[in-house]
């Protein structure tokens, strides 16, 4: 009997393990398949693909610099807006708010994350963009001279994209920061209060303790912002030009794939778009892995700091 039982356990392990292998294979397959499809473009353009600005499918010229610029610029701007707000929400929910309000607030922020990208995009086109345009036109001329605000006030452009991205990543950053703050040992805050700290000073102590995890949370938001497609495509203006202006219509990597892939007729064009996707995949992979590493190391430190035997769950 024991023999057949160990045999059955072995088969169970192999059987379920196969599905685990499948997951690993899938992730590798994404990288390999995209790399194979972008060979044509890599061979033809090499590194110039990422250094040149001309994107002219008709002439067969493909330079992806505007897309990588637009992706990074919009995501960084979005994080600048979203991070303080998301941290404020996390601190409010985990440290300040009355217990009755906690669950409803968590639910509401989750809802913000659950609304489909396409709905944000629709709202962006018909509500946000006109509002941004109104703000842009009302800006005094003196400010319009600055490179940051140059160009026609179209509404469609970098500012609208950054705003909508910020709204979309706030729930991600705030929910992970909340988890991270939850893992800060109570002794940290109690110690601060015992030393006569004000509320803010105790919060600052907790935030400082959790800093690694919070950086991880912000980076996870960055990863989300880089890959966000529909809402950005609908409001950024889709113009492949590198510009620092917040008013200028620009383009992102995800947006150019979404807009042009179905219509890309020749092989080189398709290959150039796939290469763009491959690089987007690699960047998000690196950012996400790093952020998870940070969050994980923070959770481990917090667990180690608590009394032995008390297993705190890792924030994942």
């Amino acid at each position, binding site marked *: 009997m024991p023999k057949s039982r160990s045999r059955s356990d072995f088969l169970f392990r192999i059987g379920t393990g196969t599905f685990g292998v499948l*997951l690993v294979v899938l992730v590798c397959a994404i990288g390999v398949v995209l790399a194979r499809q972008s060979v044509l473009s890599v061979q033809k353009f090499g590194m110039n693909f990422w250094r040149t600005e001309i994107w002219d499918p008709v002439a067969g010229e493909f330079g992806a610099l505007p897309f990588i610029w637009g992706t990074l610029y919009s995501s960084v701007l979005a994080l600048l807006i979203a991070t303080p707000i998301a941290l404020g929400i996390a601190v409010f929910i985990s440290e300040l708010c009355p217990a009755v309000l906690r669950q409803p607030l968590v639910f*509401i922020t989750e809802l913000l994350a659950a609304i489909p*990208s396409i709905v944000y995009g629709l709202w962006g086109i018909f509500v946000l963009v006109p509002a941004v345009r109104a703000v842009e036109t009302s800006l005094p001329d003196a400010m319009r001279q600055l490179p940051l605000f140059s160009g026609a006030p179209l509404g469609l452009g970098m500012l609208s994209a950054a705003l909508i991205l910020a709204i979309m990543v706030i729930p991600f950053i705030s929910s992970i920061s909340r988890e991270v703050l939850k893992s800060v040992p109570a002794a940290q805050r109690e110690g601060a209060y015992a030393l006569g700290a004000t509320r*803010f000073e105790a919060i600052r102590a907790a935030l400082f303790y959790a800093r690694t995890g919070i950086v991880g949370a912000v980076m996870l938001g960055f990863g989300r912002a880089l890959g966000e497609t529909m809402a950005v495509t609908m409001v950024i203006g889709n113009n492949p030009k590198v510009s620092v202006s917040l008013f200028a219509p620009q383009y992102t990597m995800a947006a150019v794939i979404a807009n042009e*892939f179905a219509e890309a007729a020749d092989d080189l064009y398709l290959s150039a778009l796939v290469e763009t996707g491959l690089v987007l995949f690699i960047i998000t992979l690196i950012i996400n892995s790093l952020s998870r590493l940070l969050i994980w190391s923070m959770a481990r430190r917090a667990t180690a700091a608590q009394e032995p035997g008390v297993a705190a769950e890792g924030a994942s």
Partner: protein
Amino acid sequence: MTTTGRRKLLSSVVVGFCAGAVVLALVPLAFVLFFVVSQGIRSVNVSFFTHMPTPVGETGGGMANSIAGTLILSGLAALMAVPVGVISGVYMSEYAGTRFAALVRFAADTLNGVPSIVIGLFAYVVAVLPFRQFSALAGGFALGLMMIPIIARTTEELLLLVPGTMREGALALGATRARAVFSVLLPAALPGIVTGVVLALARIAGETAPLLFTAFNNRFFSTRLNQPISSLTVQVYTYATGPYEDWHRQAWAGALVLVLIVLVCSLLARLATRRLERMHARG
């Protein structure tokens, strides 16, 4: 002002900022919901669900084909993702300490973080290119890929929550590991897993990017799996970026239906979780 006074003032300012941040995040949520409901309600009626889109210029009509398409695509995705997700979740929880389980977990988290448009590209190369044909199957495959990691991680977490005594009891009665998992642990975790699947369905039903060049779109009512198929999200995208007033109205109506799907699913999931928590609390 004394130092203490200044510190107290700073503290109140920061507390005020945090409360302000919550309000600030509620504003866009309220705005989005307000516009989706007020604009969408004007075009959502019975014919929206039962009629096909009318030709440009004619008012009325509905999105019956897109609604059916979204249901079919979500069903295909679940068909693929539920078995793969649940079983790999079982593996991760059963062999939680091993190095390979950690690798699988890493793969699941990575897959979860892959931008949806990249998933679409992958599905195009794997499931559209070889057949030279956009198809519902390719769309379902893309959505399924997005669903797998969510279900796997939910299953893993919920199985780890099942009290160890239940597993020990099963094993003590002579059950094999497979028997313990499938007859004792999984049934105990089932309500939570179902909740996770519902939430994952709500999320992928709202996805657009992976469908743009896999399922594509279809003006006609289609249930054929090897043909392009319409979906609510892609149709809303087409309508929203089109030039016609009537299309925009339809887009808002589609958005309202999408938001309702998400809202109902999250509320149901929340109620179910609360019920589960109470059950656990009672022991």
